[in-house]
């Protein structure tokens, strides 16, 4: 715990806590239509007392939209990363633990998926399934699975050669039991680190997908969607792009900081 208390760790964790609190509490405090209520007398108004972060082309308050957008963006990112862990963990674990032919076949599959740029894969899946929140989660989740599987496989391969695993095998423990009781706990740190870093990428991916119109759909508020809407009014209302852009940047920055510190603590080899 003490090793987490570096400047980077403290700043990252504080930022992340604030953002998470906003995403969770925001929608409970604000009324659901706060983000869609239009004030036609104040369209594209710059930040003011009435609208601290300004308004967009429909006179919607950007502060409310960015708060409610936080929920959508984080929800998608967290669900997508959880999905990629659920898919990638067994794949990587089996591949790394058994090695040999199983490993060859599974990793060939993973390498094939890795040849598709993650964003392209996510875009294609989203276009195939039809863009909405649920399918955005599926698209990002599948696109991230090969990365998770690769890293977990590497860790499982290392742990599977440890003397304690050999001892367990010699004492007749079944493979499934060894994987669950001995290998899994020892690769968890790597999964946590990779999961945190993936969260940062998932936030970026959601923003990218929604920006291209193949992610979250209007009238929902998501950061990528807000940036997309700002595109045609950059010169007259630059804040409409900067507000959601900074929201994405701060969140990703916080996740990267926490991820970096976690890696230094949990994986001493990377120091």
């Amino acid at each position: 715990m003490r090793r987490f208390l570096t400047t980077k760790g403290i700043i990252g964790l504080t930022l992340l806590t604030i953002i998470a609190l906003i995403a969770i509490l925001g929608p409970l405090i604000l009324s659901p239509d706060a983000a869609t209520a239009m004030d036609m007398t104040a369209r594209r108004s710059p930040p003011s007392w009435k609208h601290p972060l300004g308004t967009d082309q429909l006179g919607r308050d950007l502060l409310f939209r960015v708060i409610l957008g936080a929920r959508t963006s984080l929800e998608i990112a967290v669900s997508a990363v959880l999905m990629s862990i659920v898919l990638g963990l067994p794949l990587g674990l089996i591949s790394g633990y058994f090695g040999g032919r199983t490993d060859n076949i599974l990793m060939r599959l993973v390498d094939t998926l890795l040849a598709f740029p993650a964003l392209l894969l996510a875009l294609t899946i989203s276009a195939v399934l039809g863009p909405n929140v649920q399918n955005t989660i599926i698209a990002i989740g599948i696109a991230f699975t090969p990365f998770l599987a690769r890293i977990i496989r590497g860790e499982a391969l290392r742990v599977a050669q440890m003397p304690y695993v050999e001892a367990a095998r010699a004492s007749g423990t079944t493979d499934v039991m060894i994987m669950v009781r001995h290998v899994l706990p020892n690769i968890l740190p790597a999964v946590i680190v990779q999961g945190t870093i993936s969260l940062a990428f998932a936030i970026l991916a959601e923003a990218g997908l929604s920006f291209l119109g193949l992610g979250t759909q209007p009238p929902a508020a998501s950061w990528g969607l807000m940036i997309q809407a700002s595109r045609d009014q950059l010169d007259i209302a630059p804040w409409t792009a900067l507000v959601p852009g900074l929201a994405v940047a701060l969140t990703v920055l916080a996740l990267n900081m926490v991820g970096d510190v976690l890696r230094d603590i949990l994986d001493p080899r990377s120091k």
Partner: protein
Amino acid sequence: MTYILNRLLSVILTLFLITIVTFGVTNILPGDVAMMIMGTQSNPEALEGLRQSLGLNDPLIVQYGRWIGGMLTGDWGTSLIFKQPIAELLLQKAAASAVIVVMSMTIALALAVPLGVWAAVHRDKWQDTTSSTTALLGVSLPDFFWGIVMILVFARWLGWFPSSGFVDPAEDFLGTLRHAFLPSLALGLGLMAHLTRMTRSTMTGILNQEFIRVARAKGLSERTVIWRYALANAIGPVITIAGLQIGYLFGSIIVMEFLFSYTGMGWLTYQALLNRDLPLIQATVFVVAAVVMLTNLAVDLLYVAIDPRIRLG
């Protein structure tokens, strides 16, 4: 030699698997080519007739065989939205994107290597903190956000570069470069962040090694030690990472070309996906995956060529 041969064999196998994934994913799409040609409101009998003549009623494996056969013989079909042969279209757009890829990679390396070396040499001092913070900010900002900032600053306010469009290099090469510059800079800044971190960590490891101490003890100037001795050893991993970033670049290029209305491969892929132009989706997705994989192969081989210590096999 065996290493190269094995690597080539695995490349062919992966290419084959890529075709299966591409074909598979695009065939789950609801609706088919016939419906896209004739529209959803078309006469069911006419639709059925077109399906029959296009061979859409054949088993998937037959359709897959026909697709692969076409790809191998250069007949890539016709795009439904552009009404143009796909091979021709791809070649044209790939050339446009190649300008961006080369330009952004050059910008990224030109900034990242000095910054990474600077950080490693002054490890744990303010220079290191500055460099790491810059890199961290770089990875955290979505590259399309950089793109928007570029448009605001360099196109709208300063008016130095155009904010959208593409010019054919055959007509006006300088114009091509001017149009490609802002998207390349935005992509380059995103890439730079990863490469700076990589250069720093590799250089840090190398600067702690014996041969560097020996070089210093010999009285060589610090500049020679760092740039000739240390960097020569660090550049391999950095190039590898740069090569691996090609995949990331091809993902980001879709967003960037959309933002800058730059009509390259990314823009084409996006149009194909948005309009569900099946034959075009299949071709673009396959080409991108193949290029990414072949780049990784090239990087591996280059690595063997520039670093005599790893002549594997």
